[in-house]
């Protein structure tokens, strides 16, 4: 609905002022007039649609955070309201896509697979970090507030800068390493069923950054690795195929001052994880592992 740039009249004044100083071509005038009329028509259409939608009982009201540093008039963050016709099984992502396609093509958000695998559409929905594509509309209270992830810089609308999150993920070396190889050159590196079961939940991470955004400590301490990175470290540190040497190296990474010790067991990450990874449990286990490891050398 209210996707207009505010201060419309001011802009019109500016154009008028410019017109006086340097005489514009007839074409410019015509184009300006055309734009103005198109704007008006769009506003009218949107108002009508909103009215119809509001009258229709089966619509949902979405209040979406808008911000665009590149467009004057959109630099001040605001909330736009969209009325979306409800269909059974509709997710927050579906509603956002409908809003973008129907009302305002400038509405920006990340999404790709739409089935909770790619992890690109974590957002702050009704005050909680949610994966928009697996959050059912009918489980939410209206109006549904959709905001970008807290504790990250907003690039535009619902898109946040995840560079820092990826840096922290990098820091734990999130890939398989070993110097213990099986005898035969073509033999596979086999894992026991029990060991696979142990790391199973930790492998489910889709790098969506919901946990990092929910973590109070990560918000204050920029160096803190954060739940996702520590979970990644857990996934490999607990993998027996990596061997003792690599495990020691991994423990060194996670037990630096801004590693596991910063975790205050607030359980926020565990609450928000869309893949139900018991993050706090993994962090706690690594703490105990690190303590045991150090006691050995005393």
């Amino acid at each position, binding site marked *: 609905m209210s996707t207009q740039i505010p201060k419309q009249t001011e802009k019109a004044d500016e154009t008028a002022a410019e017109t006086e100083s340097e005489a514009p071509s007839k074409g410019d005038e015509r184009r300006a007039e055309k734009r103005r009329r198109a704007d008006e028509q769009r506003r009218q259409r949107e108002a009508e649609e909103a009215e119809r939608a509001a009258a229709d009982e089966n619509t949902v009201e979405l209040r979406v955070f808008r911000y665009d540093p590149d467009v004057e008039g959109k630099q001040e963050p605001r909330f736009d309201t969209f009325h979306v016709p409800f269909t059974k099984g509709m997710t927050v992502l579906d509603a956002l896509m409908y809003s973008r396609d129907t009302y305002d093509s400038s509405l920006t958000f990340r999404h790709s697979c739409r089935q909770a695998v790619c992890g690109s559409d974590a957002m702050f929905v009704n005050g909680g970090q949610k994966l928009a594509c697996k959050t059912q509309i009918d489980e939410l209270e209206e109006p549904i507030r959709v905001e970008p992830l807290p504790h990250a810089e907003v690039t535009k609308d619902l898109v946040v800068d995840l560079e820092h999150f990826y840096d922290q993920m990098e*820091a734990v070396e999130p890939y398989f390493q070993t110097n213990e190889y099986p005898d035969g050159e073509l033999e596979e590196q086999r894992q026991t069923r029990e060991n696979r079961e142990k790391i199973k939940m930790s492998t489910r991470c889709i790098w969506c950054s919901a946990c990092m955004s929910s973590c109070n400590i990560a918000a*204050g301490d920029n160096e803190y690795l954060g739940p996702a990175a520590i979970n990644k470290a857990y996934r490999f540190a607990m993998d027996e195929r990596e061997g003792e040497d690599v495990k020691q190296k991994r423990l060194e990474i996670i*037990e630096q*001052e801004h590693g596991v010790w910063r975790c205050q067991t607030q359980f926020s990450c565990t609450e928000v994880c869309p893949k139900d990874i018991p993050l706090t449990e993994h962090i706690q286990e690594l703490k105990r592992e690190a303590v045991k490891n150090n006691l050995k050398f005393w």
Partner: protein
Amino acid sequence: MAQRYSSFEKGGRMWLLQRVTAAFLLVVLAFHFFLLHFVHHADEVSFLMSAGRMETMSYYSLMVLFLLTATFHGVNGVYNALVNQGLTGTKRTVIKWTLVAASVVLILQGIRTANAWAGIPLY
């Protein structure tokens, strides 16, 4: 990128110590409250009664240990809270040593007080 981190192990030892003192304080603080509010009552405190307790060596040493662990647990807790909030650099060093100095003052004053009761002439 792991190389940029250096304070390996240190955090872990403090973390463990914070938990160990917590377990100790849990018991001793409960005892302290029980003894000084339920066994003895707040309105009947006198110097001689406090001195009578403190003259027992086991009580004296328990109270000194209580003071040491409580100070560590409290001051380390405050320090951690500040680090969690992103305290870094010079500010952090300054605050760290201020806290250490405050702890030393608190412990010295506490021991002097205990000595005054116990009749140990070191105060």
